[in-house]
């Protein structure tokens, strides 16, 4: 079961809603139900009554499917047990047991209205009901429904997949009870981890209004300009901070068959003068593709396809003019035109395309304030979280320069929106005195307020300087006597310089602070040790240097562990190898729900070298569920490390014993630092550093048992020859090396075993091959 120290709360805080009903168990409904269950909140999932023996078959099948879906809607399969299934005919009255009802049925006004009438008869008045509609205006949804119903009604628009997409748009009607908006917002923010954006009741709300405009424009202009799909995706992707799937790759992902529905609904809802109509007609090619089953990745392929004919796997792309597939060719922008500024200034057809599409898109976005959102902040947030743009339209305009954009628009014959005119040669965002202010439609500047309980290091960076810093890390004062250490290397990897600033920080915190949090605003907490440096040192046979780094890392991590103040690690995203080991050395962990943590050293032919083996053993044997005797903890740790297993969520990290019972999980990424700080403060009073563990390990007999198991796996074709070697070293460490089973093995003994194994392995050719292969391809070499 997922356990939480809820955001902004304390131990034992209860969620805003204690039971939620989700009606409709399609991909979105099941996904929303799963995310609510992920938060530890019981769900009633209803769908139509099925013919046959099981009247709840639709909802039951949806859960079974969700359990098999990758990426997984559930953070822990056990969360599925929190979902009770039912059907609308027999069980609708049970909505009265629920504190919030989410409707996620098919996008048909008549069916939704019919359901609402039935809901009106059974639901507990004063509890919110929301629709996940993405296309139907709220005003139409509640037409003809009584006031007691419209008071309770709002739109909560989730993005697919609901677990992973952080955006939630909330739309209210004129009579929606403001208390509901507060309660739903609070629940979705703290418990479901969503960033809530208020949108107006207009077609497509915010993200889809701008996003589909952008996609339609990009596709249509591409045909007009005679560009290939690779060219389009390269131009419209990375240079603008947009995912490399660009437009066509994204359409393949979303499902090409959805496009005609969306554009039809937008066309019917938007006013005649809306710029959307200029690009609203689907490419004729799309109709043919859908007819032929080319609906994208879920179908036979889309704008891209993988041709498996002849046993191979060849990536192909479609010719936008003829519809024929040919081998996909990589496209690189000419030198000097690879970034946004260069591209927008380029005097070729690629520059012309970028100017047209992004000019149209940014102008469209700027023309929609306040029609779809009262402020620019909501629009940027929606595009950043709903379409994974690094920067929303207004932040992009700031990067280009508003005045420059205005000039570009004039040159392209695109109307310059009033808001862009108004900001003149200023910026849409300004940082002053540590406060960010955003330009408003009133021509004034308004502070961008963080929600209560949200802290980001970014805010401290705006307002001041770190207490300590180097090129590799920094120590920040985050208030109330708590310091925060962040790594600032690429992918937050560890090297000698990170160890140096970390060591200095630990000493400083000991003198000037009460507690320390390890945290980074970056997507990933840490990718572990810097493999590139390790390979470089190994190629020069600088074994002494490598040894020094191992010894140093071990010493610094143990200093951290036994420091006279509490340390809380707050991982989010990946925490691998050395990044996992530092988490293991903290007194407590406050992890983001999406934490992918693991000791992955064996993948590159190494073993954990910075204390990971001992820390994992200590965790396993402390668990009362571990069977007695020396082998069960050893076996479990061995299996986890030898297979380089990485958790697919914080909940799974808890199952893997990387997180302990007292550790917390934060659903909302933006609340992680605040939660970690609170956890650290809760440990300050009466803090004592942990006692040093002593291990009782199995010795030679235990190692033999593990070796035999690995040999079996090698025969089964699961383990490669070098896996057997690496696993043998790992087995030696985890069974206490040469110690007899009656002898105590100290923490220092464990470190020495790790060091010896690590140094032996890094001097072996197959390990170096693995490291080089990983650096070159990003994939493990199975040698």
């Amino acid at each position, binding site marked *: 079961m997922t356990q939480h120290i809820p955001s902004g709360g304390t131990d034992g805080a209860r969620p805003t809603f204690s039971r939620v009903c989700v009606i409709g168990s399609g991909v979105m409904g099941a996904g929303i139900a799963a995310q609510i269950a992920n938060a530890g909140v019981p769900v009633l999932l209803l769908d139509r009554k099925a013919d046959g023996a099981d009247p709840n078959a639709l909802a039951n099948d949806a859960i079974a499917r969700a359990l098999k879906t990758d990426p997984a809607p559930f953070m822990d399969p056990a969360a599925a047990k929190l979902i009770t299934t039912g059907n609308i005919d027999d069980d609708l009255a049970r909505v009265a047991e629920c504190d919030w009802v989410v409707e996620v049925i098919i996008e048909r006004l008549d069916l939704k209205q019919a359901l609402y009438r039935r809901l009106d008869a059974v639901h507990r008045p004063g509890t919110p009901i929301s629709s996940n509609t993405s296309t139907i205006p709220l005003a139409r949804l509640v037409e003809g429904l009584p006031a007691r119903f419209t008071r309770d009604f709002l739109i909560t628009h989730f993005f697919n997949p609901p677990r992973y997409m952080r955006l939630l748009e909330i739309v209210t009607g004129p009579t929606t009870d403001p208390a509901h908006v507060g309660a739903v917002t609070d629940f979705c923010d703290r418990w479901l981890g969503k960033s809530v954006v208020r949108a107006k009741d207009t077609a497509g709300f915010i993200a889809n209004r701008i996003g589909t405009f952008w996609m339609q424009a990009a596709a249509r202009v591409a045909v007009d300009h005679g560009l290939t799909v690779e060219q389009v995706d390269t131009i419209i992707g990375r240079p603008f901070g947009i995912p490399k799937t660009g437009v066509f790759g994204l359409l393949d992902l979303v499902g090409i068959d959805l496009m005609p529905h969306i554009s039809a609904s937008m066309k019917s809802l938007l006013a005649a003068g809306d710029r959307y109509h200029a690009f609203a007609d689907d490419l004729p090619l799309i109709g043919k593709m859908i007819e032929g089953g080319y609906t994208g990745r879920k179908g036979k392929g889309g704008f891209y396809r993988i041709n498996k004919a002849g046993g191979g796997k060849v990536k192909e792309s479609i010719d936008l003019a003829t519809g024929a597939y040919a081998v996909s060719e990589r496209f690189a922008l000419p030198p000097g035109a690879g970034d946004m500024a260069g591209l927008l200034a380029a005097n070729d057809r690629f520059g012309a395309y970028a100017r047209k599409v992004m000019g149209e898109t940014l102008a469209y976005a700027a023309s929609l304030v306040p029609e779809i959102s009262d402020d620019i902040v909501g629009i940027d947030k929606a595009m950043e979280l709903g379409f994974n743009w690094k920067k929303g339209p207004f932040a992009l305009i700031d990067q280009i320069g508003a005045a420059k954009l205005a000039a570009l628009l004039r040159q392209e014959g695109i109307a310059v929106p009033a808001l862009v005119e108004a900001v003149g040669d200023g910026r849409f965002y300004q940082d002053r005195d540590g406060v960010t202010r955003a330009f408003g439609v009133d021509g004034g500047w308004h502070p961008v307020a963080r929600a209560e309980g949200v802290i980001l290091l970014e805010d401290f960076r705006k307002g001041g300087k770190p207490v300590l810093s180097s090129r590799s890390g920094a120590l920040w004062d985050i208030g109330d006597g708590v310091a925060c250490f962040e790594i600032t290397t690429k992918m937050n990897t560890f090297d000698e310089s990170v160890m140096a600033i970390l060591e200095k920080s630990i000493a400083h915190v000991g003198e000037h602070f009460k507690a320390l949090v390890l945290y980074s605003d970056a997507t990933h907490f840490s990718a572990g040790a810097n493999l590139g440096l390790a390979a470089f040192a190994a190629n020069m046979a600088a074994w002494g240097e490598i040894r020094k780094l191992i010894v140093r890392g071990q010493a610094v991590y143990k200093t951290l562990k036994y420091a006279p103040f509490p340390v809380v690690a707050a991982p989010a995203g990946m925490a691998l190898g050395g990044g996992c080991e530092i988490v293991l050395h903290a007194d407590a962990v406050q992890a983001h729900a999406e934490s992918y943590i693991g000791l992955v050293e064996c993948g590159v032919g190494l073993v954990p070298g910075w204390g990971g083996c001992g820390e994992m053993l200590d965790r396993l044997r402390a668990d009362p569920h571990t069977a007695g005797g020396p082998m069960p903890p050893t076996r479990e740790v061995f299996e986890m490390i030898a297979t380089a297993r990485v958790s697919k969520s914080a909940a799974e990290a808890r199952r893997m014993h990387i997180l302990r019972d007292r550790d917390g999980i934060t659903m909302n990424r933006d609340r992680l630092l605040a939660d970690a700080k609170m956890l650290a403060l809760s440990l300050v009073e009466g803090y004592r550093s942990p006692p040093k563990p002593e291990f009782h390990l199995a010795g030679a*007999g235990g190692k*033999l*048992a593990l070796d035999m198991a690995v040999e079996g796996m090698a025969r089964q074709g699961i383990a490669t020859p070098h896996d057997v070697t690496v696993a043998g070293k790992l087995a030696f460490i985890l069974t206490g090396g040469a110690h007899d089973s009656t002898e105590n093995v100290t923490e220092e003994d464990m470190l020495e075993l790790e060091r010896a194994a690590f140094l032996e392995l890094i001097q072996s050719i197959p390990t170096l091959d693995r490291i080089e292969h990983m650096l070159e391809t990003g994939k493990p070499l199975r040698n």
Partner: protein
Amino acid sequence: MNSVVIAGYARSPFQLARKGQFVRTRPDDIAAQVVRALVERTGVAPEEIEDLILGCAFPEGEQGFNLGRIVALLSDLPLSVGGVTVNRFCGSSMQSVHMAAGAIRMGAGEVFICAGVESMTRIPMGGFNPLPNPALYKKRPGAYMDMGITAENVARTYEIGRAEQEAFALRSQARTRDAVAAGRLEAEIVPIQTRDGVVSVDGCPRPDTNAEGLAGLKPAFDAAHGTVTAGTSSPLTDGAASVLVCSEAYADRKGLPKLARIRSIAISGCAPEVMGLGPILSSRKALERAGIAIGDVGVVELNEAFASQSIACVRELGVRDETLNIDGGAIALGHPLGATGARIVGKAAQLLGREGARYALATQCIGGGQGIATVLERI
């Protein structure tokens, strides 16, 4: 000397380990319900039972604490009844029968419960703390050899190909399917109360198994050269079995049913690397001690640890197909290590009456390189 008879047979349903219906049920709780049912069904006077001899291959964890005594107490046998745990791996509960038979012969008790149990879900094969002796491993690696590899060794030595193994597995599934369909297994099964409800049917058989499906499976133990698959091996299983063993005179006196008389028993050893051949020598010894030939035997219960070793034993012993595992074998039914011996002795005794044969042979192979065999005679 006292003649020894089998006077009752009962077992739990057998369930797949880790995914069957006994996953959440303790092995001692399963065994106790089987023992209690055996006592009730046979009508034996509990206070006259000398001992509960319980076979178990990995007697630790929930199978620890002298499981024999624990099960005696759990099943509310009188306190005067003893309890002992016996381990000869897969041969454990056939060994229970042999020990009871020996004791009865020498007048050291008249009536025994011989049972066996294994939860391969809750106590892993190899135990929680496998600590093999490195010196022995060096000298004799086969001592700890994976059972699947011994099955591969037998297949190679006897040139038993995949197709032949798969045909044997299909036969096992078919015999089991027919037995289940005809209700021939119902009488021996004791419904078991679990936390999640009552379980009263076997969970291992795959009645839909077909040749194509079997042919599509990957080798389970040796990816490069193997012929043994999950489909031609007995599955990891949870379950318990028991037989009532007493002197013939006692049975006559108390009016207990005499299913079969124990004619002879035998133990033998063989190379651990081909442990599956164990039944060959032990069966020959037992048949010789009974003064009969394999041609005289109308019912053979040969434990199907693997198809390959079963085929090798059938070939070497000259077992006729129509006498072999008439109601199916372990490939379909499952093989809860400690429980299997009691099942096949009980089954052989039951079949003697049903099939009208004179002699039955129950035999099995044992990890580490042994065989065990029992010859029964219809009364």
